[in-house]
């Protein structure tokens, strides 16, 4: 756990990040601070990268059951640059628009990355959510079939992106639960 060169962010960079993401000024500075604490010593923050483990150990993601999927979706070549972290925070911020959140939620929940959320993905989501060792097969298949009954409109036993979008537009808790506002300060 080293410390990057403690450069203060340039004013133009801050303005640019504010214009390009949904984050407020304070949030960007806060993430900048947390990034500086974790990145390897002696490097400029714009060139430094964090490993997936370092980002997974951030307090915001530490106890999230989907943290490995989040890291996989938002990282490039399994490392996080500063702008990757900002992008991730922007998607999870309060001001982000619903369509962006739904798009990234679909990518996070698609475990096998085949472009659809199929039964196997659903079972893995439910197992992660319940986090219990004694899970009967009936319970899993019951829940999976209920979810597909509700949202699979063309009866192909998987959820395409438009079906997922339609289901999340109807869901009242999605916008409230799919956000992170504490990034370390």
């Amino acid at each position, binding site marked *: 756990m080293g410390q990057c060169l403690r450069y203060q962010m340039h004013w133009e960079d801050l303005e640019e990040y*504010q*214009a390009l993401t949904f984050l*407020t*000024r*304070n949030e960007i500075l806060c993430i900048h601070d947390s990034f500086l604490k974790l990145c390897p010593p002696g490097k400029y923050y714009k060139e430094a990268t964090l490993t997936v483990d370092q980002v997974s150990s951030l*307090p*915001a993601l*530490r*106890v*999230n*059951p*989907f943290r490995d999927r989040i890291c996989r979706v938002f990282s490039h070549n399994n490392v996080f640059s500063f702008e990757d972290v900002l992008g991730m925070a922007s998607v*999870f911020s309060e001001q982000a628009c619903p369509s962006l959140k739904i798009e990234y*939620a679909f990518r996070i*929940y698609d475990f096998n990355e085949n472009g659809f959320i199929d039964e196997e993905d*659903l079972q893995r*989501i*439910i197992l992660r*959510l*319940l*986090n*219990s060792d004694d899970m009967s097969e009936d*319970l899993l298949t*019951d*829940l999976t079939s*209920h*979810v597909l009954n*509700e*949202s699979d*409109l*063309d*009866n*192909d036993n998987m959820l395409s992106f438009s079906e*997922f979008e339609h*289901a*999340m537009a*109807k*869901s*009242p*808790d*999605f916008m*409230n*639960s*799919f*956000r*992170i*506002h*504490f990034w370390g300060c």
Partner: protein
Amino acid sequence: MKYLSEWDQWKRYSSKSWKRFIEKAREMTTHLELWREDIRSIEGKFGTGIQSYFSFLRFLVLLNLVIFLIIFMVILLPVLLTRYKITNSSFILIPSQDVDIQCTVYPISSSGLIYFYSYVIDLLSGTGFLEDTYLFYGHYTIDGVKFQNFTYDLPLAYLLSTIAYLALSLVWIVKRSVEGFKINLIRSEEHFQSYCNKVFAGWDFCITNRSMADLKHSSLRYELRADLEEERIRQKIAERTSEETIRIYSLRLFLNCIVLAVLAACFYAIYKATIFSQEHMKKEIDKMVFGENLLILYLPSIVITLANFITPIIFAKIIHYEDYSPGFEIRLTILRCVFMRLATICVLVFTLGSKITSCDNYLCELCGYNQKLYPCWETQVGQEMYKLMIFDLIIILAVTLFVDFPRKILVTYCSSWKLFQCWGEQEFAIPDNVLGIVYGQTICWIGAFFSPLLPAIATLKFIIIFYVKEISLLYTCRPSPRQFRASNSNFFFLLVLLIGLCLAIIPLTISMARIPSSKACGPFTNFNTTWEVVPKTVSTFPNSLQTLVYGITSEAFAVPFFMIICLIMFYFIALAGAHKRVVVQLREQLNLESRDKRYLIQKLTEAQRDLRNRLD
């Protein structure tokens, strides 16, 4: 290389700076939001269900503050300006005509030295030195305020402020609940919550600590299992035989009669307690012991609190035998408790009303109300509402101090005793707490007409309750494994508040329109009833406006208007039905499309195979 023209450059620069300005303004307004940090930390530690309770409490603080501002601007400000000679205005006092002189007698007891304990009793019950203050209706015996350029009609302003704050509350609550209601309408499923919502939006990404995460996992486990259980029970219900159905329905009828009997018994007890308290309140203070005096003054409040404590337990026991699905059980119990809590206030107010208008001597025909016992009945009703509010606050503080904290101390330090281990730490019961504050708000709505400063007291009371509940939550409660969902909660809280508002409007309209106003005090001494201000004001309008107003309120206008509204409502219902049918048809079409797609893909692979076979 192309450069932007000067005009385009300036447009881009100005739009960027405008966006920056809007963002800065938004950031600043979020700093102004009351208790933002507290509610955020509660959300992080206890989940969104409990956080929605505290957001609801904050909403009520703001609502009461705005109501008090309306009353202050409209009623208090002119009176204060004139009384303290800040502006060059004077009061107009019109002596009442066509009213018997006996009706205007108002014996205000003003004693010289007040003993300390009678001072405390006066403070707690609004009598004595508090009776003729700005707190109560009786102080505003003013018919108008004469400013330099115009005359301010105080009676009309008083009535309009009441209507204004009721209308404002209604509009604000409906506006806040529209989001929750829209979502309920969109959901076409019969059951309360969809599985999609629970699976894809089930995990709260805000959670940052391990214990909260474990709690969320266990609550999700509980919820999903309970939903599947409910599904199974619903199937079982659908498969009931006819004789079982008859047995269950007759049992339910019997149990509902028991519920009604319990409600009737509680209402009768409150009626008796109110009558007893009113009759004995007039005795001399020094003839009674200190505690006895307070007991009689607070008897209605005590009976209401006891009834509200016992009946939920009885209802919870009864609903076991009625054999409903678990989700419906919870909802029905809560509905019964809500009705019980709010109806008790109405019973109290109606008892008072019946006492005020019933008399056994000739004075009732004279003044229209019981002048001997209630020379200024609005002030007395205001005093009852004031007592209810103070007692409610005392009970909440006492329960937190004498039940919650000792329980926590006992469970932490005497955990070796089996009894305390079983009892366990307490959980934050959301429905009870919400009913408590809706009860307080209903009292405020009814009482604000009779006691203009009551909304300010309500604001202070809710602020105190916020901090007390927050401290109690953080130090004595453990998070419950059964968690309320925030989307459900918001809609439920506002629905209960709306029921409270409707139940508050009923006694107010009856007292304003039916019961003659006091002739001895208050702004309406020159009118028969409070509502009479409006017709008298309309009769001072120019003739054309008068005929317009009379036309709008006549039957010739009201009946066609009502019929048109019904037609519009039927049109929208038909439109909604047609949309639903279209949605069903579209879903079937999607189904067919996918079948066609699979059929075509199958045909394509077959054709490719044939082609390959032929080539080989």
